[in-house]
């Protein structure tokens, strides 16, 4: 295993590692635009220049393989001047767009200018004008003037999604990024190009102009869009959640995430959420009453539950589970009901047809993050078909409803089936007009507000922590159990 010394720090790396990867392992920053760990090496930007002992000229760190005994310097005057001039050349035709560019605050040009630049530009020729605000597809917008032609996005569409939509056309300083004729950038991984673009050339239509990056805070979480369980970073501030970006995890998702996962934050924001307890009962006149304190509502539900069990027996209570809750919630809720003698647990599978499909890169057909955890924690789950047969004699049903309504396209039909039971308590994070006929609607916490574990389709358990509170009255299922168990045990 060759040993390399960078700025005096030595590390032993596997053969074939490039200098820039070795520097990354040592936490030494080297300025780069076109190198990306998940893509092939291009060597186009010429920013990662390093001085290697005994080599007369500077070398690019991304394409130089480490040899045993190599000594590399990244902080000599020669290197700093080279990086400054490479940056200067990149900025020659770059438009003065910082006020309107979304990348301000996380732009590599800005960052490297502050560390290596701080010069007065000596260029006095007019800049080359290209097209701005070019729509590349459903989700991505291109600004050709801002592009520094690092070709990260071109290599992404060539190697990762293998759809070959992007290319660099023309030569010299007239080069521009564009899509091939008749091939808009519409694959299911297009927004990853926005993440890897080091400047503001590619921007996401969804996040465009919504918020400045320095107003956002970030925390780590797991995507709840499908059973792959990609690791993500959620960006939020006091106005809500704004975007979702992938995190690196070589066991699960590598460097990328799919576009359907980018929409999961929409169901967590206040506009979609159920913010208060909704109760409908005949003695209140049949109309919905909102705003009861959650603790009181849970106590009443517990009391009603124990009444039903005392009068009609435990077999008249049923539970419908969707795979969108954490392991801890399943085990606490399951144990609570098993102690009371209830054993009718039904699994709500939202898409039977393509449940086991896989698109080859990341997205799976099972659009629930924790089906595997559900099956593990609760033994004896019956299917939806059994539920349809057995629903009518049931007195009370508890539904652990889905959070991500986009994944549950069969919501409307299933609601009709569930209505056949007499009393329904529905735990849901999102509000919908379809749910307005049920007895109790309890606001549940979305996945960004609770801590727990999701088990992905390969059996890997991934823990995540709560990041923020959007609806203060929302409860996780564990808290719901705590609220119900006092009154449920009292009567029986």
């Amino acid at each position, binding site marked *: 295993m060759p040993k390399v010394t960078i700025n005096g720090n030595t590390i032993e790396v596997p053969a074939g590692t490039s200098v820039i990867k070795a520097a990354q392992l040592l936490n030494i920053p080297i300025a780069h635009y076109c190198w990306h760990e998940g893509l092939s090496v291009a060597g186009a930007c010429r920013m990662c220049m390093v001085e290697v002992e005994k080599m007369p000229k500077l070398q690019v760190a991304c394409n130089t393989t480490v040899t045993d005994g190599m000594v590399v310097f990244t902080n000599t005057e020669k290197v700093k001047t080279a990086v400054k001039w490479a940056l200067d050349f990149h900025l020659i035709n770059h438009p003065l767009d910082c006020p309107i560019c979304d990348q301000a605050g996380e732009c590599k040009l800005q960052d490297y200018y502050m560390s290596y630049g701080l010069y007065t530009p000596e260029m006095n020729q007019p800049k080359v004008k290209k097209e701005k*605000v070019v729509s590349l597809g459903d989700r991505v917008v291109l600004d050709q003037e801002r592009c520094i032609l690092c070709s990260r996005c071109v290599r992404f569409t060539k190697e990762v999604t293998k759809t070959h939509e992007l290319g660099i056309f023309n030569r010299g300083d007239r080069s521009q990024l564009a899509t091939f004729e008749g091939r808009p950038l519409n694959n299911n991984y297009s927004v990853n190009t926005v993440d890897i673009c080091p400047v503001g050339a590619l921007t996401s239509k969804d996040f465009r102009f919504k918020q400045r990056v320095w107003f956002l805070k970030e925390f780590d979480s797991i995507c709840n869009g499908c059973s792959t369980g990609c690791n993500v970073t959620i960006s939020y501030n006091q106005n809500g959640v704004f975007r979702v970006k992938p995190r690196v995890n070589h066991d699960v998702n590598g460097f990328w995430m799919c576009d359907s996962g980018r929409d999961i934050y929409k169901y967590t924001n206040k506009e979609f959420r159920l913010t208060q307890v909704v109760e409908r009962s005949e003695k209140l006149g049949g109309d919905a009453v909102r705003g009861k304190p959650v603790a009181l509502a849970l106590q009443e539900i517990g009391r009603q539950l124990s009444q039903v069990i005392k009068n009609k027996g435990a077999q008249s209570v049923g539970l419908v589970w969707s795979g969108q809750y954490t392991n801890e919630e399943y085990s606490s809720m399951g144990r609570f009901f098993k102690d009371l003698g209830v054993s009718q647990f039904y699994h709500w599978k939202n898409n039977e047809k393509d449940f086991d499909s896989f698109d080859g890169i990341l997205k799976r057909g099972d659009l629930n993050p924790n089906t595997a955890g559900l099956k593990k924690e609760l033994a004896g789950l019956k299917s939806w078909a059994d539920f349809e047969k057995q629903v009518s004699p049931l007195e009370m049903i508890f539904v652990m409803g889905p959070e991500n309504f986009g994944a549950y396209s069969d919501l409307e039909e299933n609601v009709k089936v569930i209505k056949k039971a007499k009393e329904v308590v529905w735990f849901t994070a999102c509000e919908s007009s379809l749910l307005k006929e049920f007895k109790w609607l309890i606001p549940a916490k979305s996945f960004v507000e609770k801590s727990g574990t999701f088990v992905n389709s390969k059996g890997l358990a991934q823990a995540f922590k709560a990041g923020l509170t959007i609806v203060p009255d929302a409860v996780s299922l564990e808290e719901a159990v705590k609220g119900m168990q006092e009154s449920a045990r009292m009567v029986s």
Partner: protein
Amino acid sequence: MSVVKRPSQKSKWYIPGVLTGLGITIRHMFFNLLHRKDIFTIEYPEERYPYSDRFKGNHILTVKKDGSLRCTACMLCATYCPAECISITAAEHDDPNVEKYPISYEIDILRCVFCGLCEEACPVDAIRMGPEHQTAALAGSRFVYDINKLAYRPNLKGGVLSHVDDEERKARGL
């Protein structure tokens, strides 16, 4: 050795002190009665005090030549404001030369400390601190100034032109 002059015994007598003080007041009174024009009281609201050019009063959002707002919603002013009183919502403009513009620009004038940091931070001379003093108003009036009030209020006579004009810059090829 220092000689400290302490107030003399005489100043502790009551009548001479009172008479001297009263004398000054009565002299001022007769002076004001006879020389009405030399009184330095500024009779607001009929007379006004001339402010300097750099006076930091109510904000003005400047406009471009065609009357639209100069502001590009870059949010530097909102970031720099120490009182966190500026709220901006950006939106996409149809003209690709003017990509970004604010659909709502609000300053909570009750929080504003009139420091002028927003004027300093703006890269395109979109906001200025104007020459009107901070206006008082009854409780219940609108104290959150929106774009209409900041850019197009009647005092401004249709809008103040900005000094930073993008057309020249674009014509020169920058």
